[in-house]
């Protein structure tokens, strides 16, 4: 493990990615203190301004300061992505651990559900569920969780299958511990680290999905500042005010790029272990 960390530290791109993520997290947490203006304050007199001294990135179709909106949008988009990743991971790990630990008919039933979910192209079901629940950011996160857990549970199930036969699990059972205790205290801590790595690699993808579906109107709703929603709102003004669509898109790309840099670095650093996990 120390070797991997050492190798990761020497990976320049991964470190750049990590730095960008740290900056974005800082912006997301301290958005209210960093924004110059209220992101929702409408000022029709100043609408559709190009970048100038008063508004460093210009204003939108309602005269709202674009930079302040982007700062708040960082908060909204990153929080939603982190929440989605956390929920997908939790659900995936729980279901995967149950399938692997109990085996038999429980495992069979869960794996058939996994097969069915895998028969849909990733986003199609998410779009349908998010749309039917009614467009809102929280519904989008729920829809992504409902369809996204599959990959994690497959990996966890594989790891649990191999670990549950080990002596220390048998020992715990002999000592009379219950299933719940064994799963949460002995099994999950031993299989969780590859999942956290995969979650990091996956984060870029999650951000693309959240902003993409918000762009389609199935996520955050106006006037909430969110990168995808802002892009969609700026679209009709593409010719006269291109900054409205350029900057939110740039923010999405930089964020995804940062996570991909870090993800690539993690993959390289942990390669032998990852390969072992992926093969199962």
């Amino acid at each position, binding site marked *: 493990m120390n070797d991997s960390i050492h190798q990761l530290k020497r990976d320049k791109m991964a470190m750049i990615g990590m730095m960008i993520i740290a900056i974005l997290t800082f912006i997301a947490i301290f958005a209210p203190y960093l924004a110059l203006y209220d992101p929702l304050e409408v000022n029709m007199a100043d609408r559709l301004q190009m970048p100038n001294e008063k508004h460093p990135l210009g204003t939108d179709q309602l005269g709202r300061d674009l930079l302040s909106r982007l700062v708040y949008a960082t908060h909204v988009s990153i929080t939603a992505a982190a929440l989605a990743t956390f929920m997908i991971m939790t659900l995936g790990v729980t279901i995967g651990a149950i399938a692997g630990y109990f085996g038999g008919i429980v495992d069979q039933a869960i794996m*058939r*559900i996994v*097969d*069915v*979910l895998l*028969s*849909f*192209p*990733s*986003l*199609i*079901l998410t*779009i*349908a*569920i998010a*749309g*039917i*629940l*009614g467009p809102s950011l929280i519904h989008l996160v729920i829809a992504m969780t409902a369809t996204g857990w599959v990959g994690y549970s497959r990996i966890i199930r594989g790891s649990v299958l191999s670990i549950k036969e080990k002596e220390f699990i048998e020992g715990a059972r002999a000592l009379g511990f219950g299933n719940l205790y064994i799963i949460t205290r002995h099994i999950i801590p031993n299989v969780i680290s590859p999942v956290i790595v995969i979650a990091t690699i996956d984060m*870029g993808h999650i951000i*693309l999905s959240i*902003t*993409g579906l918000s*762009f*389609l*109107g*199935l996520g955050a709703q106006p006037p909430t500042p969110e990168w*995808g929603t802002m*892009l969609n709102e700026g*679209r009709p003004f*593409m*010719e006269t005010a*291109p900054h409205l*669509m*350029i900057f*939110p*898109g740039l923010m*999405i*790309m930089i964020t*995804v*790029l940062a996570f*991909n*840099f870090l993800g690539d670095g993690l993959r390289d650093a942990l390669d032998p272990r990852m390969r072992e996990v992926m093969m199962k």
Partner: protein
Amino acid sequence: MKRYIAKRLLLLIPIMLGASMLSYSILYLAPGDPAELMLERQLQGVPTQEQIEAFKEEHGLNAPIPIQFANWLYRILHGDFGISLRTEKPVLTEYLNRFPASLVLFLMSQTLSIAIAIPLGIISAVKHNSEIDHLSRFVAMIGVSVPNFWLGLLLILFFAVYLGWLPAFGYGGFAHLILPALALGVSGCASIMRLMRASLLDVLNQDYIRTARAKGLCERAIIVKHALKNALIPVVTVIGLHIGHLISGMVIIETIFAWPGVGRFLVESIHARDFPVIQGFVLLIAMIFVFSNLIVDISYTYLDPRIRYE
């Protein structure tokens, strides 16, 4: 081989049954009574209790849910996917009318990305650590990170609005196809290129390539005749995996470019809560997806004789 295909086809039955169950249950995810929601859209107002009852009676929504599902499935097996509430045409007709446009976009995008990615990946691997390698890897990294909807808008802004070279949206000749196919294909293209490079580098380090070099074969023959065949196997896997991403991406790209395909119609129907269309389209898309995965899996056996499915 025949046995493998037969087995895979048989396995499709339970999976498609599950997929149709899931597609049908979408109706009951909606907060509130689906009949009321559908009527609200149809009548553009709040329906009366009698209207709701009549609607439920007409569409068989009073039966227990398993019976409703069985009826729905029975009709689907007879080719009846119901009627769109929005256009009042059969769902299957709507799908079939839009499928060709989507297929054309899909094929164009896939061809374009493979045609760019594979040669670039090979050059990158052969000229390992050269300027070209660094540049194409950098571009590929941008390619996998750029949101396709933003790229689509930038392409419209640059090539349609500023330069006026290509039409910004709509369906028509070859010119209409270029921008959406590009926007859709870039991320797949970038990841195929990255994998082609990694896979060829991996193969070029193997012993049998050293043997080929030792017996004095020229580099070109080594790559074309010996290395490429093995290096392409993981690339085909990823091309297969990307079918799902492409279909998902099409929903967004078709919406931006006003492309009259399946994805755009699905999004419009979701916004309009046109339940029969959503259920039918989701199931039909899953069917296409499952079959294309099957074809990819079968094609492996031809590409890699080491793989034997028994």
